[in-house]
């Protein structure tokens, strides 16, 4: 078991013939992800990835021909909202959007339409997710993982790799690692993923990587106090971030009124009994302290 993606995932890649799409699709294939099709409007009938994937003009056609049940989106920000709506309209149940820089008002519309349609969206502005040894969707480097029993959820990209590498180096493998994205409006929240990990019998412990901005970490802490009995450890980036400035990620901003600080998030997590690391490298030890072997 694991969450969201596994060996049965039949992945479609929207934007498969673009530079990013092609590069990362090749890496996904090499990892063992089952890519069944690509979509690039106007390039239907061609093949991509050295003949290993057929390209379709529309998502609907790709789904009909291949039975794709997940889509990974690599199209530029100006076209990504439309790509997400197209995937949802074709009844793909799981959409992962890697694209960074999508206007927030576009995302509000997409969020509500996909939710009403029952489409689960991960991202945008996220590195994707990996179920270790089964399927990697997105841009997380495959070789940093080892299979094990810890689930990881994060708002970040390279910081996630840092933590995963530290865990793997410490002999602590993972079930699934999910990057939910650094934008203000994202499809899947910390709580959504924590809930899935909580119900996954193979996931025995959970790591959560947050950062400044918004109040999702605080809400997640309350959820964990109420629902989660598995050992947890966390890290929050941005203790030195000044208020009122966007720290790279569109969602990483402490309001001028002082909401969304690392201290507030850390306090909420600790109040929920979750150990919070001062450095990503401390996470394996915190998990051990919490009883993880």
């Amino acid at each position: 078991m694991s969450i969201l993606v596994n060996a049965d995932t039949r992945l479609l890649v929207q934007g498969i013939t673009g530079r990013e799409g092609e590069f990362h699709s090749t890496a996904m294939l090499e990892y063992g992800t089952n890519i069944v099709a690509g979509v690039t409007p106007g390039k239907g009938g061609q093949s991509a990835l050295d003949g290993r994937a057929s390209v379709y003009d529309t998502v609907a056609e790709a789904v009909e021909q291949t039975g794709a049940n997940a889509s990974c989106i690599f199209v530029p920000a100006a076209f990504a909202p439309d790509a997400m709506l197209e995937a949802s309209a074709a009844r793909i149940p799981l959409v992962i959007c890697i694209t960074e820089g999508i206007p927030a008002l576009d995302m509000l519309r997409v969020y509500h339409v996909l939710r009403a349609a029952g489409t689960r969206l991960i991202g945008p502005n996220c590195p994707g997710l990996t179920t270790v040894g089964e399927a990697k969707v997105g841009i997380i480097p495959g070789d940093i993982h080892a299979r094990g029993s810890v689930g990881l959820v994060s708002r970040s990209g390279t910081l996630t790799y840092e933590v995963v590498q530290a865990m793997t180096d410490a002999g602590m493998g993972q079930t699934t690692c999910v990057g939910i994205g650094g934008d203000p409006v994202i499809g899947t929240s910390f709580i959504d993923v924590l809930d899935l990990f909580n119900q996954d019998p193979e996931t025995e412990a959970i790591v959560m990587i947050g950062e400044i901005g918004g109040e999702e970490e605080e809400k997640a802490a309350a959820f964990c106090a109420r629902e989660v009995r598995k050992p947890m450890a966390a890290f929050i980036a941005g203790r030195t971030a000044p208020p009122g400035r966007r720290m790279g990620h569109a969602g990483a901003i402490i309001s001028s009124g002082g909401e969304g600080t690392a201290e507030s998030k850390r306090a909420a997590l600790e109040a929920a009994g979750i150990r919070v690391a001062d450095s990503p490298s401390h996470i394996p030890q915190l998990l051990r302290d919490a009883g993880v072997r």
Partner: protein
Amino acid sequence: MKLQEYRSKEILARHGVPLLAGETATSPEDARAAAERIGGPVVVKAQVLVGGRGKAGGVKLAATPDEAAEKARDIIGLDIKGTTVKTVLIAPAADIAHEYYLGLILDRAAKAITVIASAEGGVEIEETAKTNPEAILRLPLHPLLGLQDHEARRIGFFLGIPAELRKDFGKVMRGLYDAFASSDADLAEINPLVVTDDGQLLALDAKIVLDDSALPRHPDLEAMRDLNEEESSEIAAREAGISFIKLDGTIGCMVNGAGLAMTTMDLVKLAGGEPANFLDIGGGAKADKVTAAFRIILDDPNVKAILINIFGGITRGDEVARGIVEARANLEREVPMVVRIVGTNSDEAKPILAEANLITADSLDDAAAKAVAAAGGAGA
């Protein structure tokens, strides 16, 4: 991107929000001429993006054009929280009978555009939220339909807008919403929205913050950027496609990825140092980008050491190492550099860095400690 008051008012006026626009001036003489054209008493207002300009002496009333020139002389050149005032707005003074607060925000929790309204205008809404939270209405608007008339009416009744002004309030609410939606704002607020002694509804002050991600589709709004209020290094970074924020410490940071960049800063602090900046170099990190990043970091004379932290995923470690060595050869100023490269091809990166006599580190904690030591130790 934050817009100045006079720019925000320009946008609101375009969408039918009633206000007294006034004119901008950059010299006392211009201020006098503007006050003459306006006629009657005026307010001279510093145009700065930081809050608290009133308390800092940046807003003054003037009864005559001569007085307007005098007040403008006081205000232009004034330092308000580190920003030197270059421009003032000369606006007609209004006799205020009542003040309201009316704002729209992109509400990440409610996943909607949310109205924030309070009958206690003229003070910062964060202040009202602390002292009198029940005086605030938070109303998330329909996410797909946008502002509906029943929502606008509800806000008007909550604020206690006088019956004869309800129609006008509907226009203000509609205009504010249209301004927000059509310019892809993060925040649009009128504070205060006033009823004057002669019974007019007017926006006396306005603030709009735009969604940076949407700026590419609004070149007209991008042109409203006030370069006077940005660090020259931050302007250079934007042009180079690097995400950069200047801070006050001594250790320059160059990192790939925003979350890891913040973490690197945090670990510098934990090791007893102070970060000089946030810098996310993005994917790739080729020599030209590394060169630009070095220039931007070293533009700050406070920088005593640089910590480079790259997690190679898509980015290949040996390529980054070569880029660093190449870029360093062309620098005008030498400071100690601590380089930590992990991930893809990091083993191939090591000999390249060693040959160039760069300080290397395997872990991020170790790298932060070495950078702090190289900058002169903790507390330096």
